[in-house]
């Protein structure tokens, strides 16, 4: 169904706190319709959200696998509580393929195949080598990576290299819940207000410019990262997997659009037209890869070499 020579598409973990129904429906549709190779699944942002939909996880995973998807279990990006560490340990010990988003997991999965998530800093060959020696089979580069970094790391990598190519850019994780703070609440008494914003809460500058998106303890970009014109060059650099991060848009259509570009079925310009219809008012960004500020939108192409 998918063309592996031209690069694989993956669906990143759902970062937002959707209702159990919305989450079930979303993954059912992904399982049945989305042209993605791997689906990352699991709570990355806040462990307080987990009890809401835990009971659905088994069925969702089964359905994704039945749909031919490789399921990779994502961990929290920041763990401090004993129960969070215990959950990560249990997940690692269960033998499933894990995307480690906190170094904590590496202590448990070392020596066994695992994926290094974008929340673990891999900016250079030294850290790449250590992690591959530890059993990493795929490394998702941090969102801040420039083309120069991607070029060096992907071209020399003995394992798969993945890069985020669509969705809000994850900029930070914290212990504090900013969603709660925006409602004058604290993390301990948050009333799960993050559930009110399925695509995140806009945080604008004081002069009214759109800048950030709050998602619980996580801060994301206001715009969507859109790397379409850059895909061919990235593929040429040795990037093997291209990640789409779930947003509150038609992700099946987003996947179809990216797939078509990777397969040279449509041009990036045609794809941009299709994607613009899907992403509505949300601005696009691609500055980090171009060595610019992450919020920038750069029209120029990457040199393929």
């Amino acid at each position, binding site marked *: 169904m998918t063309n592996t020579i031209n690069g694989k598409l993956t669906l990143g973990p759902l970062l937002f706190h959707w209702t159990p129904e919305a989450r079930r429906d979303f993954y059912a549709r992904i399982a049945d319709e989305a042209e993605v190779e791997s689906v990352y699944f699991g709570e990355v942002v806040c462990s307080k959200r987990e009890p809401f939909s835990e009971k659905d996880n088994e069925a969702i995973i089964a359905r994704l696998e039945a749909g031919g998807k490789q399921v990779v279990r994502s961990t929290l*990006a920041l*763990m*401090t509580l004993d129960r*969070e*560490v215990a959950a*990560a*340990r249990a997940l690692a010990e269960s033998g499933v393929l894990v995307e480690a988003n*906190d*170094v*904590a*997991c590496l*202590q*448990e999965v*070392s020596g066994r195949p695992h994926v290094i998530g974008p*929340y673990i*800093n891999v*900016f*250079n*060959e*030294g*850290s*790449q*080598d*250590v*992690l591959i020696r530890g059993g990493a089979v795929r490394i998702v580069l*941090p*969102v*801040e990576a420039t083309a*120069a*970094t991607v*070029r*060096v790391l992907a071209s020399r990598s003995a394992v798969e290299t993945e890069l985020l190519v669509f969705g809000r850019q*994850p*900029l*930070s*994780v*914290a*212990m*504090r819940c*900013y969603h709660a*703070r*925006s409602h004058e609440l604290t993390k*301990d008494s948050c009333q799960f207000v993050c559930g009110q914003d399925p695509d995140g*809460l806009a*945080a604008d*500058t*004081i002069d*009214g*410019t759109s*800048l950030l998106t*709050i998602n619980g303890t996580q*801060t994301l*970009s206001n715009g969507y990262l859109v790397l379409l014109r850059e895909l061919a060059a990235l593929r040429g650099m040795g990037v093997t997997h291209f990640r789409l991060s779930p947003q509150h848009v038609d992700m099946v259509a987003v996947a179809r659009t990216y797939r078509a570009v990777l397969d040279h079925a449509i041009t990036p310009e045609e794809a941009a037209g299709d994607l613009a219809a899907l992403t509505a008012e949300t601005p696009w960004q691609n*500055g980090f890869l171009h*060595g*610019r*500020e*992450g*919020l*920038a939108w750069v029209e120029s192409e990457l040199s393929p070499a």
Partner: protein
Amino acid sequence: MSLELVCPAGTPAALRAAVDAGADTVYCGFRDCTNARNYPGLNFDPDEMAEGVAYAHRFGRKVLAAVNTFPRAGDARPWHDAIDNAARANVDAVILADIGVLDYAATKHPELRRHLSVQASASNELSIAYYRDRFDIRRVVLPRVLSVEQVAALVRRIGIETEVFAFGSVGPMSEGRCFLSSYITGLSPTSEGACAPASHVSYKEDGPETLSRLGEVTLNRFSHGEPAAYPTPCKGRYVTHGRTSYLFEEPIALNAIDILADLQAAGVTALKIEGRQRSRAYVTEVVGSFRQAIDALDRGQGGAVENTLASVAEGQRQTHGAYTKGWR
């Protein structure tokens, strides 16, 4: 055991000031992108580092070199040089964050003591164990996100020394992996070593108020005399639900001077004062106060020292941060 007082030095003069004011240990960085306070005019060249170490050692104090940023791909040389120069300067330990740099130091200079920087964001026992077991780190600088109880639990389980922040800036984000500043400026704190680099900071008078800007982004507006922080993205004012607030963190400084007994009881080895970018006067004042407080604690007179640090605290206000309930 007396708490070890670990103090910042952005310049050789500040190093001497810290030693003179009673620091047990001083930490500093080289004059380039290899440390997380890479601001113009700050930090040490290799000769100054060696002289600083000699000065501290003359008084029986220690010097730590922070090499705590993340090398860029294809350009690890400055970081490797920094480790080599630190070893040559006879520093007592290096403070590291990047897995590759840790690997280099452990391989090339196994005898050089290694501390894990807060920039590695190791916030739980498994993460710390990972770095301990692979790179033989002897001390971890704990992120500013843990309660005293959590610190105590970690100390019991990890079997290596812990250093915790006692005074200075409050960092609400998981450090070493915050990309807000590069999102706005294009310069990465993780590899360039400067959050909100001065080259991108500007102030603009706007009637009776001042606007602080980072790159093209307005981060704050404050009236004259109103406390305000250096415009890092996490200290700005933002608008959510039509309401303006310090969404991430107020202009406020962490000050744990009146809970030192609790930190000591938790089994903490060392107290870290933040602020290599601050002045000598700041170093002298903060270090002097903490020296007194620790000495009082050692005499069994904890809490006897008056807290007089409000004037040097960021925004002139102080918090216990995550150490006590309510901050989150």
